[in-house]
């Protein structure tokens, strides 16, 4: 079976404030410049190396693990997964 890397990005849901992202935006990026940037959201990235039949199976398996073990807190966070063959 081939190996894949599934990258999971965990970030706060849109309605949940993100003081880290806000600080990077207001106190760094927007300091007198870059006025075209309107928002920054911070997050955590976890990269899972996994052996599976195909890309979809790899992604589904990692998302299942994330749900079962509460790798992210569904109350306040959302996850997005991307997968690549390694």
């Amino acid at each position: 079976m081939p190996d894949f890397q599934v990258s999971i990005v965990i970030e706060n849901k849109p309605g949940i404030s993100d003081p880290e992202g806000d600080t990077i935006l207001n106190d760094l990026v927007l300091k007198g410049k870059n006025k075209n940037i309107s928002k920054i959201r911070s997050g955590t990235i976890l990269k899972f190396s996994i052996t599976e039949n195909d890309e979809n199976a790899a992604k589904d398996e990692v998302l299942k693990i994330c749900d079962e073990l509460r790798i992210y807190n569904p109350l306040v966070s959302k996850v997005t997964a991307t997968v690549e063959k390694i």
Partner: protein
Amino acid sequence: MKVGVIVFPGSNCDRDMHHVLTDVFDLNAEFFWHEKNLPENIDAVVLPGGFSYGDRLRAGVIAAHSPIISDVKKLAEKGIPVLGVCNGFQILVESGLLPGVLLKNESLNFMCEWTNLIVKNNKTPFTNKLELNQKIPIPIANGEGRYFVDDKTLEQLEKNNQIVFSYENKVNGSVSQIAGVCNSDGNVVGMMPHPERAAEKEINQIDHKPSSLIFESLVETVGMKK
């Protein structure tokens, strides 16, 4: 009677808690390592503060999967009083024993300071000796102490009288300035501030009596001393 103090890798308030329970309030307390089982004859459980698993991933989430938590859940279902302080509170929300979640403080700072709590529910096993709206001077020491629930859950918490403590002033961005909550049965209580650091005159220059009433409430609830 026996109070179980749960110890996780990274707990660092366990000895303070044990000292206060045994030396100050004459309770019979015993440490339990998180990989062990809890005996069924435990009368109360305390999850102390600290940095279990170094706060990896999210404060409390890894400890919430510890083997001993399933025993804590069983005891909680039976109505045994359970108190989580600071990291213990974070573990209780991550294990689903309490509603809500604790996010990074609004300031993003680790906050270590004295604050005032207001008692909002004096019917729990840990607040029954306190007066409603009584003020408690008490220290906080956390980086992830901003309590959050959505509006619907907040409404339920208010309706069910599950908000146990609130901060007198805006401290860290917590919803409704919530500092502590309980489950719907009222026997599981979590709070971010540290009563074990405030219940003795020697270490509380303001007033140690309100914090000591938290432990006296437990004594009142579990009855006899050792």
